[in-house]
């Protein structure tokens, strides 16, 4: 378990598989499966040419990048020069990205081949994959059910083997949620670890770009490539680049302190919690010490988040006035996008901001303090990723019911810590992911726990 990416890389390095062949296979799979699954909005017509250029470069004896020959999907809210960055919205349906996001530059610098643009919830405002202006995405691991969101296309593409790796974004759980529903691996990095230059914002102080992969090794590899300080933006952690894959071999969690909070069980459905409890036992068997941690206000994180993200999203969308590119957002967007804009507009008014926006930022301080205190006692916190199983496509949910999916993932975004998801099991064939949350810049421990677990699953 968990050898897929490494095996693929070995094949590419040995010459057993050529980059062009890998890309062609991916394109074939996409053309065969995407009509039903709808994980990709656009396929990169230049992908084969890029692969050919890579092969020529390798023939000349040049060093192969870490991602050499791998087919990589990029979520549609990340600028890829020459491809449309639509955010799955009519607002930007014709916006051809005029520059490369920093993470895209880094992927290309390591010889990754961009295979296409992944579908998503419109402007990342969703947790199901049902709000895209270009059609819903299906869950390949549980057909007929939602794949989760907002990185719905990324989760579905990996689960159906359409490509090797994907870049998603996570503001309140948008990588971890689809990773759990689709039974794949996803990581939300520590806030400020990965550059956001070129990411079309949902919530500036909350979101990070992160990897979605079929295994922990693949996620760690892609994370390693995109992480690290970017001089061309301001709000970033000043840390050197490190290797995450180096530490994965023989990942050992003996003696690690793993925290679990009783509040998780209070929020989560029994069937889901059952899978997680069994996973905790597995971790215990691997030698970890399970410690109880209290997160008394974890439930308050969700409403606080929705107030904060609405204000930030309102601000972020003021540029979509239809003058320089695209259309005026309020004229063409979907319901949830409009809901957040109007809410943000309302609660940021002078007379209300203290009561709503600033109060929510105070609750954020409380949540952060609680998580940090818990993480003082343990190396990582383990638990469920989502409180309930993914619903069937077409089920009508109220906004509050939809927001409820985010209870367990939001705290990490509010606090700025990292979190990863690995498949823990299934309930009647529907995947359930286990979430591992770590300290600020604690990706190494998180990945180690995920890998150790994956190796025996």
């Amino acid at each position, binding site marked *: 378990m968990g050898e897929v990416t490494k095996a693929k890389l070995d094949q590419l390095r040995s010459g057993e598989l050529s980059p062009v062949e890998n890309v062609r296979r991916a394109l074939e799979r996409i053309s065969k499966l995407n009509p039903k699954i709808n994980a990709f909005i656009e396929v990169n017509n230049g992908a084969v040419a890029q692969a050919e250029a890579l092969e020529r470069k390798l023939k000349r004896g040049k060093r192969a990048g870490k991602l050499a020959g791998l087919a990589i999907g990029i979520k549609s*809210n*990340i*600028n890829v020069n020459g491809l449309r*960055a639509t*955010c799955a919205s009519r607002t*930007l349906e014709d*916006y051809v*990205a*005029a*520059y490369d*996001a920093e993470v895209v530059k880094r992927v290309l610098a390591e010889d990754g081949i961009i295979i296409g643009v992944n579908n998503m919830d419109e402007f990342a405002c969703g947790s199901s994959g049902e709000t895209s202006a270009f059609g819903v995405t299906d869950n390949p691991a549980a057909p007929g059910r939602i794949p989760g969101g907002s990185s719905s296309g990324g989760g579905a593409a990996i689960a159906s083997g359409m490509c090797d790796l994907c870049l998603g974004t996570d503001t309140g759980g948008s990588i971890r949620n689809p990773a759990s529903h689709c039974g794949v691996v996803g990581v939300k990095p520590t806030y400020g670890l990965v550059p*956001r*230059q*070129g*990411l*079309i*914002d949902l919530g*500036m*102080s909350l979101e990070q770009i992160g990897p979605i992969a079929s295994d922990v090794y693949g996620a760690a590899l892609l994370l390693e490539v995109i992480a690290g300080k970017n001089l*061309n*933006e*301001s*709000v970033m952690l000043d840390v050197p680049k490190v290797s995450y894959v180096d530490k994965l071999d023989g990942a050992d969690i003996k003696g690690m302190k793993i925290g679990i909070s009783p509040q998780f069980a209070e929020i989560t459905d029994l069937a889901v919690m059952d899978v997680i409890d069994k996973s905790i036992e597995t971790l215990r068997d691997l030698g970890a010490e399970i410690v109880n941690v209290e997160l008394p206000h974890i439930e308050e994180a969700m409403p606080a988040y929705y107030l904060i993200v609405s*204000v*930030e999203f*309102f*601000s972020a*969308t*003021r*540029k*979509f*006035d239809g*003058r*320089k*590119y*695209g259309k005026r957002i309020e004229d063409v967007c979907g319901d949830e996008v409009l809901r957040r804009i109007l809410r943000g*507009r309302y609660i*940021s*008014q*002078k007379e209300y*901001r203290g009561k709503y*926006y600033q109060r929510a930022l105070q609750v954020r301080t409380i949540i952060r303090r609680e998580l940090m205190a818990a993480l003082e006692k343990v190396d990582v916190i383990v638990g469920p990723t989502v409180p309930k199983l993914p619903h069937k496509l077409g089920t009508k949910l109220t906004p509050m019911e939809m927001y409820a999916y985010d209870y367990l993932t939001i705290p990490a975004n509010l606090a700025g810590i990292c979190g990863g998801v690995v498949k823990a099991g299934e309930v009647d064939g529907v995947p359930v992911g286990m979430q591992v949350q770590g300290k600020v810049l604690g990706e190494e421990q998180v990945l180690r726990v995920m890998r150790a677990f994956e190796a025996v699953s």
Partner: protein
Amino acid sequence: MMVGLEVHQQLATERKMYCDCPTNYQDVPPNTNVCPICTGMPGSKPLSPNEKAVDAAIELALMLGCKVVVDKPTYIQRKHYDYPDLPSGYQRTSLPIAVDGELQGVRIREVHLEEDPGQYDPTVGSVDFNRSGVPLVEIVTEPDMRSPEDARRFLRQLIRVLEFTGKVRPEAGGAMRTDVNISLEGGARVEVKNINSVKGAYKALKFEITRQKAKLGRGEAVVRETRAYLESQMITTSMRLKEMEEDYRYIPDPDIFPLVIDDAKVQKIREQMVEPPHLREQRLVEHYGIQQAAANVIVSERKFADLFEEVAKEVDPKLAAMWFRTKLKKVLNYMKLSAAAIKFTPKQLITLLQMIQHNKVTPEQGELVLRELVKKPADPKELVQRLGLERIEWGDLELAVKEAIRRNQKAVKDYLAGRKEALNFIAGKVMELTGGRADPRKILKLLRAELLKKS
């Protein structure tokens, strides 16, 4: 009547405030000095603030006698409003970096940092983003002015102070823009935007006063509104922008960390900054006992004032001030030179002025030497010799006077007959005879004495 100003001044930096695009927006074709950041492309993020702009803002605030906000986070905020020249739908503007200053009796409420929007031509409907992102400092006054003349006076003084620092973009049409706020008794406050010159501010205020007085006179209310100044017609017109009056919904920009200025930084800037001209003017008057008008001319250029103070160490300051204010300024203006372009040394000027002070040369001779000194610096003593300007001996002067009288009998007759101007004629002849080396006052004195003998 209450008049307040919000002055937007561009800072002299090479890069824009939040990106590395060049700032010379007037020299290039439309939309050339642009990048994803200053055009508000989807997904663009600002670079960290331009340090030179931050330091310049602090310096300007100190020049205006403000208290800098220290040891507190100064957030860069997003000010949201909808207008074609604002690429992101919000302007990045800082909380005040300094408060409570004063210039010429007008209180300065606050100083903060902003970025310039793009250039929107509202009549044609076109936008050029070259200017978008150029660093600005905004200076907000209290409504302490009471007339258009007050405002004009203040603005001229403010420009002088700002340019003195060398940290602002030279005034070349648009480097400084002003919004004026005016309220008359019985009327609400009206804001007038789109003013690009001191003259514009003056004209806009004059127009507004007329307009508002007329309204109040007719019994109509003067409502709170935002108007635009139309330069070509010298009138103001209502902008009727409901959106502009809406809540700006300020939030700290999540993509930029706050600034925290500490005392050490303020000290450092204070130490290396130039003394504000209006304060220096006062100090010159008090310290050297010179006239206000002379001090005012002396501080018109920092290097000019520096030279004066150097000279005043060794020459009678009042004499020096008189020379700086009149003759030196005249020569520099005539030769179109700034004080910074002066090539002679302070010592050379001191030597010359000392010669004048001790009557070694006449003032008129001194001016001739000064002209040479500016053209091609040399030791003034040498110049005096070279120009043949040594003081003429008394005896030689007497002889020249007698000779001139002898040669110009008709003029003598005319003078004695009562034609006073004939004296000047004879004096002129004496000047010729003495090669200009004699003091005209002495010539006249001797002439009168001689001619008196004859009558």
